[in-house]
């Protein structure tokens, strides 16, 4: 062994090198406060290792970036850990860098003769921020896409060269393949290479001047190895444990694939940039122009930090005091703005709803990507575009939710509120639905509601303006045709027959009728009992009930009940009663949405607008109906929670708004 070392030493001088590296003098003894630089070097090494591994599986293009990251995260061996380490170590690096900077300033380690090394450190900081910026876009998910849009748009307000800088960064005038290839080249090539170069200089110059020691008598002098290395190693191990724990317990998020045509309301920068984000939300800041808030202010702050060595040189101890005061002020400001931004978001119900949707889309995208059909060549983005579970709620919210609700909400999980009245405090009251809640449309519950308590089932209709108007007009003696849950033939039938229907004698029959009706709707992912269905069919058509109900059949009015909904529906056989042929099925629903006013449906009693293909394209109608009838690949993604109870409680008087008069009186 010794021979081998001698041989090496003769040729490369290994002993001298090792000695120089390990036996640097540490005056005043090893201390915990010296560990920050080493933790940063370690974190960078971690990034290089995990980064290389991610590189070996990542494919930068708009149709493969999300897809390959998905594959790394959800299919490759240890992929989630490697990506998680890279994701969290990147954040750790920013935090450690901030600590390192604050400490260098408060310890005065930036002062002569260490100015150049301080500036090298600032260059390193810029490179690290560049790495985190370029890395955020690479997964090409909604989160990264929209957050990075903001950053590249900020670049464009740089005076004089802004537009060109933006074009160069993006690789064109708009985001596309080249944005990814360029960001990737920066992220994995140019920036890390520069970082290595500047880090080498930084460490070289650091070794030249040695540690900045305040208290040489703190402990006896020692050497870097092993005393300080031990402390550094413990600190690095703590960092590693933290990022590894995070990677395991909270795997890095991959939101839905980027889609420039899909609005993303949950856009936020990575948390360590929240303070800048919040700063740009101040109207007073924006009033001075975006360049001021996004370029000049951060530029001036960086400038003040960069000239700290000169400040200290010119003003002596007072300069050092100013520098320390400034860095503490900045730290406090950053923390305050970050907390403010997080607090505001936590209390912003719109943002929370947008976040919920973002998580739902993300999980669904991953579910579809790992489904039996995998990802088509046109990318994962097309999976979501064609998915009823993803598009249905959006279409419902856009087209239906001004009257209907879905389990109390607008389809996308939000309760709809009135406008905030002038002078009112707090949130406005919930808006009254004016048409049926369709959350359980076509289900056994729905059918049961119609058959046993029609008036209650369609009670929301009575909130509609047209309804109250029609009631008024008929009270005035006018002949008005309208749907009336409180007094129509169907309402009378259910109220008149409730007793017998709910009596012991018909309990089995009722269950069978419901089973039959639900099977006629035939929503996907449900099973029906064939014997019960058959019994229900006979009840519906022949009316062989027990007791008072005996002889009353659905078919007596709805003569097409039990038939499939016709492929080319027309009104030639309209009986004056809504058709029950395939009631609640996809075919029935499509026809009803297109022609609710047809005689086969509600005819002249209808008040729902007909949705022609100029309002709702065939493709969108198909997605909406498939969502409403459960016709999509099975999902384990949690749906939006049912909000009916909250809606009802809110409408029952638990509103959070104070009357304008009361608010005025308080002033």
């Amino acid at each position, binding site marked *: 062994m010794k021979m081998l070392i001698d041989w090496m030493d003769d040729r490369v001088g290994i002993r001298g090198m090792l000695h120089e590296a390990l036996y640097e003098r540490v005056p005043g003894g090893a201390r915990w406060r010296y560990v920050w630089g080493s933790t940063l070097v370690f974190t960078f090494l971690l990034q290089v290792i995990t980064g290389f591994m991610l590189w070996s599986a990542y494919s930068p293009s708009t149709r493969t970036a999300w897809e390959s990251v998905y594959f790394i995260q959800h299919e490759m061996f240890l992929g989630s850990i490697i990506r998680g380490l890279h994701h969290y170590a990147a954040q750790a690096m920013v935090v450690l860098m901030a600590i390192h900077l604050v400490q260098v300033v408060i310890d005065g380690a930036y002062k002569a003769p260490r100015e150049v090394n301080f500036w090298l450190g600032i260059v390193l900081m810029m490179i690290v921020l560049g790495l985190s910026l370029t890395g955020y876009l690479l997964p090409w998910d909604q989160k990264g896409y929209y957050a990075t849009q903001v950053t590249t*748009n900020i670049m464009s307000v740089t005076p004089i060269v802004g537009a060109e800088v933006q074009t*160069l960064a993006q690789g064109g005038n*708009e985001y596309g393949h080249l944005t990814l290839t360029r960001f990737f080249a920066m992220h994995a090539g140019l920036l890390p290479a520069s970082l290595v170069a500047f880090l080498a200089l930084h460490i070289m110059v650091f070794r030249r001047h040695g540690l900045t020691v305040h208290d040489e008598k703190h402990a006896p002098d020692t050497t870097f190895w092993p005393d300080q290395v031990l402390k550094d190693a413990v600190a690095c191990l703590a960092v590693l444990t933290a990022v590894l724990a995070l990677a395991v317990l909270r795997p890095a998020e991959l939101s839905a694939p980027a889609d420039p045509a899909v*609005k993303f309301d949950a856009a936020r920068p990575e948390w360590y940039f929240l303070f800048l984000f919040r700063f740009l939300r101040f109207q007073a800041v924006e009033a001075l122009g*975006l360049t001021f808030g996004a370029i000049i202010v951060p530029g001036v702050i960086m400038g003040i930090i960069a000239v700290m060595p000169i400040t200290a040189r010119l003003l002596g101890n007072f300069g050092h005091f100013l520098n320390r005061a400034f860095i503490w002020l900045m730290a406090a400001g950053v923390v305050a703005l970050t907390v403010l931004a997080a607090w505001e978001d936590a209390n912003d119900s719109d943002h929370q709803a947008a976040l919920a949707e973002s998580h739902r889309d993300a999980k669904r995208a991953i579910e579809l990507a790992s489904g039996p059909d995998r990802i088509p060549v046109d990318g994962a983005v097309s999976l979501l575009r064609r998915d009823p579970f993803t598009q249905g709620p959006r279409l419902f919210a856009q087209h239906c939710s*001004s009257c209907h609700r879905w389990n109390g909400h607008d389809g996308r999980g939000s309760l709809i509120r009135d*406008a905030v009245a002038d002078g009112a405090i707090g949130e406005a009251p919930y*808006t009254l639905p004016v048409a049926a809640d369709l959350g359980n449309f076509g289900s056994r519950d729905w059918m049961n509601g119609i058959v046993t308590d029609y008036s209650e089932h369609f009670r929301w209709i009575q909130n509609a303006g047209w309804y109250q108007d029609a009631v008024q007009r008929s009270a005035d003696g006018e002949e008005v045709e309208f749907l009336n849950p409180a007094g129509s033939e169907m309402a009378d039938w259910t109220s008149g027959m409730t007793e017998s229907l709910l009596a012991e004698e018909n309990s089995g029959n009722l269950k069978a009728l419901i089973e039959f009706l639900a099977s006629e709707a035939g929503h996907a992912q449900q099973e029906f009992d064939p014997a019960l269905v058959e019994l229900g069919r006979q009840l519906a058509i022949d009316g062989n009930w027990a007791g008072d109900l005996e002889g009353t059949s659905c078919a007596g009015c709805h003569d097409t009940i039990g038939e499939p909904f016709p492929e080319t529906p027309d009104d030639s056989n309209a009986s004056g009663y809504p058709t029950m042929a395939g009631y609640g099925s996809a075919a029935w629903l499509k026809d009803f949405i297109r022609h609710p006013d047809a005689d086969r449906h509600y005819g002249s009693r209808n008040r729902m607008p007909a949705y022609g293909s100029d309002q709702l394209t065939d493709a969108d109608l198909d997605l909406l109906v498939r969502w409403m009838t459960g016709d999509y690949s099975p999902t384990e993604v949690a749906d939006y929670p049912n909000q009916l109870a909250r809606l009802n409680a809110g409408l029952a008087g638990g509103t959070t708004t104070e009357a304008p008069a009361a608010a005025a009186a308080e002033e």
Partner: protein
Amino acid sequence: MTNSSDEVTSEVVVSVQPDYPRRGIVRQAITAVLSFLLVAVPGTLGGLFFLDPILRRKKSGGNSDSGAVQARKDSEGYIRLDVTRDAIPADGTPVSVTVFDDIDDAWNRFSNVPVGSIWLRRGTDGVVSAFNSICPHLGCSVNFRRAENDFFCPCHTSAFGLDGEKTNQIPPRGMDSLDVSLRTAGETDSNGSEIWVRFCNFRRATAEKIEIQ
């Protein structure tokens, strides 16, 4: 600590001592120029390549839109929307519409894909206006807030009236309106029901509305 630097300097001094003849200066100059070229040529070529997004002139392909798009796009770039004027709420409530077109992205052409979303609105005077839903501030998505009856961007709280004018100090300009043409069977007709829109994106963060080509 300072001693080490002294050592370094003395080493350097020792190595640059010899008494070279005068032609050495010429040789040094040539060497310097050659060395410079060795770095400068590949460096410049590489740098210019990196400037491709600004310098590139060649543009492959053309406007051979896919069949699906061709059928509803005219020579001026107006695209016919599925939605018609009569389908937009008469009370002025805006509707969100996705615009489909062919897009070229570097080496790919994506046929008939969603390229963006717009807000359409019918004024009480029957005039249809269209706005790009990208926020002119920093590029997030502008939403319609039913309760407030305005347009609002959830990123930096830019707010706009339904006419697209900005209502707070956050955005540098109002929402980007798009050229709308009402037609009947493809012919311009101010009472027509077909809505044709010339869809484009605009630079963000500028007070002036500048189209991105």
